[in-house]
């Protein structure tokens, strides 16, 4: 029993990353209608920035956790203004290709500078040990990742449901034209939302640095599953992507244990089944994408 619980816990830790990344993708898709293929690159850049900060400037993990998302959020906004913005009115395929290109450029820039080998990043001092969770002992850092990911997801949910900004974003997500007709300047919020989405990706990147391999390919490896997560949750659905993130994480961990041969395809099988059953995903509404 304790084994099973422990494996579920592993899944939740993986799910923490899926949820944070899917959340960012969902907000961006909702607001801009852009499937941001560069999302994985921002995750990778987040981890790399943490590494560069520590290596070259002695920036500790805790500072990086706040500063890196801010900086990369700004970079995201610049990219939105300079590039993505220009293609928003065209067929979505154009931005799909653009962001895919941006992803390749960012990835190869890092490859050029740092090679493909992973870079070292230590677990922050206070979290190096293990904690007793009653049934079992677990690495403190991974418990921290889970806790902070859940807090951020809840925080974003509160922001979106309880504040005026959130209401505008949700309104624009669901009925862009209607929101505009009500006198809200939707365009004003597009850039900050894109920045916010990339900041979330960067944030998960910093979180990943102490427990995962920091290398230019880390984002590309992960993003495929995250896209599946977003589709399962329902494109643009914020609650859906978070819940799907944690669920897929658990499913993978248990899949690893019981059906190892299937564990990689499991996510995509689930995705296919869900799309057959609910073409808009678990929490998606088809009319939302007018």
């Amino acid at each position, binding site marked *: 029993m304790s*084994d099973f619980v*422990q*494996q579920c816990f*592993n899944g939740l*830790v*993986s799910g923490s990353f899926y949820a944070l990344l899917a959340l960012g993708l969902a907000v961006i898709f909702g607001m801009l209608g852009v499937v941001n293929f560069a999302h994985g690159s921002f995750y990778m850049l987040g981890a790399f920035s943490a590494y560069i900060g520590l290596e070259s400037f002695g920036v500790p993990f805790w500072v990086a956790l706040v500063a890196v998302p801010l900086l990369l959020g700004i970079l995201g906004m610049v990219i939105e203004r300079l590039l993505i913005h220009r293609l928003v009115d065209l067929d979505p395929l154009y931005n799909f290709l653009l962001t895919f290109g941006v992803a390749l450029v960012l990835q*190869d820039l890092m*490859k050029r500078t740092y*090679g*493909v*080998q*992973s*870079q*070292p990043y*230590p*677990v922050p001092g206070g979290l190096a040990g*293990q904690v007793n969770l009653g049934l079992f*002992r677990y*690495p403190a*850092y*991974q418990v921290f990742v889970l806790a902070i990911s859940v807090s951020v997801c809840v925080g974003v949910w509160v922001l979106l449901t309880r504040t005026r900004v959130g209401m505008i974003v949700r309104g624009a997500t669901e009925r862009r034209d209607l929101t505009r007709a009500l006198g809200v300047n939707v365009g004003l919020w597009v850039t900050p939302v894109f920045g916010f989405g990339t900041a979330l990706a960067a944030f998960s990147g910093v979180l*990943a640095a*102490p*427990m*995962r*391999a920091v*290398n230019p*390919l*880390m984002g590309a*490896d*992960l993003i495929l599953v995250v896209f599946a997560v977003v589709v399962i949750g329902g494109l643009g659905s914020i609650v859906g992507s978070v819940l799907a993130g944690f669920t897929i994480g658990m499913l*993978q*961990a248990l899949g*690893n*244990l019981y059906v*190892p*041969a299937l*564990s*990689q395809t499991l996510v995509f099988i689930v995705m296919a089944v869900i799309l057959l059953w609910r073409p808009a995903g678990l929490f998606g509404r088809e009319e939302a994408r007018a």
Partner: protein
Amino acid sequence: MLIRAKATTALLAACGLAVGGCGGGGPQSSSERITNGKVVLAVLNDQSGVYADLSGKNSVEAVKLAVADYQKKYGDAAVAKTIEVVSADHQNKPDIANNKAQELYDRQRADVILDVPTSSAALAVATQAAAKKRLFIAVSPATTALTGKACNKYTFHYAYDTWMLANGTGRTVTQQGAREWYIVYPDYAFGQDMEKSFTQAIQSAGGHVIAADPTPFPNDNFSTFLIKATTLKPKPQVLGTMQAGGDLVNLVKQYNQFRLREQGITLSTGLMFITDIHSLGPDAFAGTQFTDAWYWNFDERNRQWADRFTAATGTRPSFAHAANYSAALQYLEAVQRAGTDDADAVVTAMEGYTFDDVFARHAAIRAADHRVTHDVYLAEVKPKADVTRDWDYEKIVQTIPADRAFRPVAESAAAGCTLG
């Protein structure tokens, strides 16, 4: 082309007249001794993907060092007067490797292709080598199929293979008293090959594999397997990981966070390059044992070569770099002995040859299966406190002598190699 070939023949004839003994001992036939007037060494490897750092472009530099050494050693007496080094990126894909190999042999007139990491890609190149009757010295792929059912007259396997890794690490660690193993391996050809070889080596040394699990590839969360390791009965003494590159780094980071070493489960890695240790820092790996084909800080001879390599590339050599140097050098030496770059003559000059260079100690090129045998080393990662200089990460625990380091000829024959 024809005109050029004629011109080269004329040039060669002139050279033969002017320098009486150039390449003396070689067959002085009327046909040209060096095709196209030059010897072309082609390095085909991964220059942008996961193996780019451990071999990649710097292996091209290593091959250039070998060319310089050959030219310095023989000067005017060199059979290969003009040597060209070319390279191509196969992106670890067998289909690309196949096309590039064809292009290198046909268009670039490569006399030999070197390196080719990724077993599936190497097998494709071996097929091309056999078809084009041109040499292929496989330096960094791991599969024993190259000296088994895929072996052929023109293909040689140089630095290491899965049998050598399993024998070095699996057998030695088991003999040291760690009898109970839990193995995790990435679910693709290399991982499956390694799992099989390790299980065999462990069992033949009196050990026992409690469980062996395939893991997704790539994978960033290994906690499922790390927790399983602690719950297995009997409890494993060693976690044997066959992961490579980023996956290996992921696994080791999480192995340390789950404190498996403190619970009496040590870590043994199937295949590790010094670049892997460098990327995590020695402390993360401290105490981990693995088999190394070559270590730059092993002795003065290695250090001197490593310094030359560092001067050319700015980084320390992995065993793949040294092995590419050695393979290129031994190829050129064979051309020198044969007096020609004619593939069949060079193969004959290589078969059965014994030598000793900076990479390959007590080395021999087996005629029966084209396995190049040499001393290999059981290494242990030093704790950070013992590291005295950059890249000084390994302690050589044991030298495994050349005649026991590699798969016996009889087993290669049993695996389907029918050269001998």
